[in-house]
């Protein structure tokens, strides 16, 4: 540890952090899982989905962007926070067309896995918007089904920061804000199947589809069929 490291607590457990680290970075380093959707290792933080909301000394904050501070008291796994997170995930489900039985990402989907973790089972509180969004299958190796997009922006950051291409970007405002491609369709961009932005770990849902790979792992044997999202970290 560097000399200026400090400690704070998450759910009563003492965690060490260095200046500049966010609450989530310090938690990950300590093996404590904070639920998240728009944040993924290797990309800059966005603080968009708010599923990682924690109570930092009583105030709600996105753990992925809130800097850790000495003696901060962070609440993470509380009923109140998990209920609020479940409502957020429910709203993401109701905003798009998330038909798990017909989605090839089912079992590998972080949104679905988060719904399992947060026990999203009751009748939905919110009416489904059932939007009519286009499918872009123009590219020979990649397809986009934007019905499943949760606008997390991971593909945007991966394409801009890692691939240096900027294939994806946000368009629109408020509820109309969507992820769009920088061209008339995906075939008219310089998207490539080897881009980090279209790799499996970037899109948390089934929006970015790598063609001819969907069912190489059968339903029932996929990543989150074996355990809850986040619990992999506990065993490390």
């Amino acid at each position, binding site marked *: 540890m560097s000399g200026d490291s400090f400690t704070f607590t998450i759910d009563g457990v003492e965690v060490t952090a260095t200046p500049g680290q966010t609450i989530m970075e310090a938690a990950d380093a300590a093996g404590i899982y904070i639920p998240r959707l728009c944040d993924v290792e290797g990309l800059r933080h966005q603080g968009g989905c708010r599923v990682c909301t924690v109570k930092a000394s009583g105030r709600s904050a996105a753990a992925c962007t809130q800097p850790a501070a000495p003696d901060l008291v962070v609440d993470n796994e509380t009923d109140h926070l998990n209920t609020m997170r479940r409502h957020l995930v429910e709203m993401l489900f109701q905003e798009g067309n998330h038909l798990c039985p017909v989605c090839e990402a089912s079992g590998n989907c972080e949104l679905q896995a988060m719904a399992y973790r947060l026990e999203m089972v009751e009748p939905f509180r919110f009416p489904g918007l*059932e939007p009519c969004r286009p499918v872009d299958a123009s590219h020979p190796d990649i397809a986009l089904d934007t019905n499943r997009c949760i606008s997390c922006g991971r593909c945007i950051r991966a394409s801009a920061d890692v691939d240096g291409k900027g294939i994806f970007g946000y368009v629109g405002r408020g509820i109309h804000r969507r992820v769009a491609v920088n061209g008339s369709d995906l075939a008219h961009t310089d998207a490539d199947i080897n881009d980090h932005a279209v790799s499996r770990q970037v899109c948390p849902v089934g929006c970015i589809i790598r063609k001819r790979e969907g069912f190489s792992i059968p339903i029932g044997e996929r990543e989150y069929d074996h355990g809850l999202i986040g619990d992999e970290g506990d065993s490390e």
Partner: protein
Amino acid sequence: MSTDRKARIATVSLAGCFGCHMAILDMDERLIDLMARVEFDRSPLNDLKRFTGRCDIGIVEGGCCNEENVHTLQEFRRNCDVLVALGQCAIMGGLPAMRNAIMHSDDPLRDCLDEAYLSSPYTRNLTNTVPNDPVLPLLLDRVYPCSEVVEIDLQIPGCAPSGDIIHDTLIALLDGKFRGFERTELRFD
């Protein structure tokens, strides 16, 4: 109340594929123990078409895509103490609900019927009309989850739900001890 009365269960498949009813059979030999505690009233499993009495548990597979589904679901609500939506179609519409949001369409039901009966290159339809016989139940504008039509007491997720989750839930309900699902058992596929 007599304690040796068997609990009465009714089941129905609305806009579903009968996969959830097949999943009920996935309880395998546990069905024998279950049948010692329950008897089936109206159900496709015994081909009873009408309720013979009030039921303790009603199990509904599939959502509502036509007026007959709505009528049947309302009848189940009237005749069952606890109404259970079984599987994703009953919970959120499932596969049939794909017709609610067809790309670029302002009239998805019309487009769906046109594709099925008129415009598809694989269609052989000599009359070139969409079937409209009066005995056919009227299709609804969209496919509705059960909870948008009647009050649903419990939803068992899955497509189809596993025999385990159905068995455990039914036993817990019969014992009056249902406390929710284990989150590790939840599946939407």
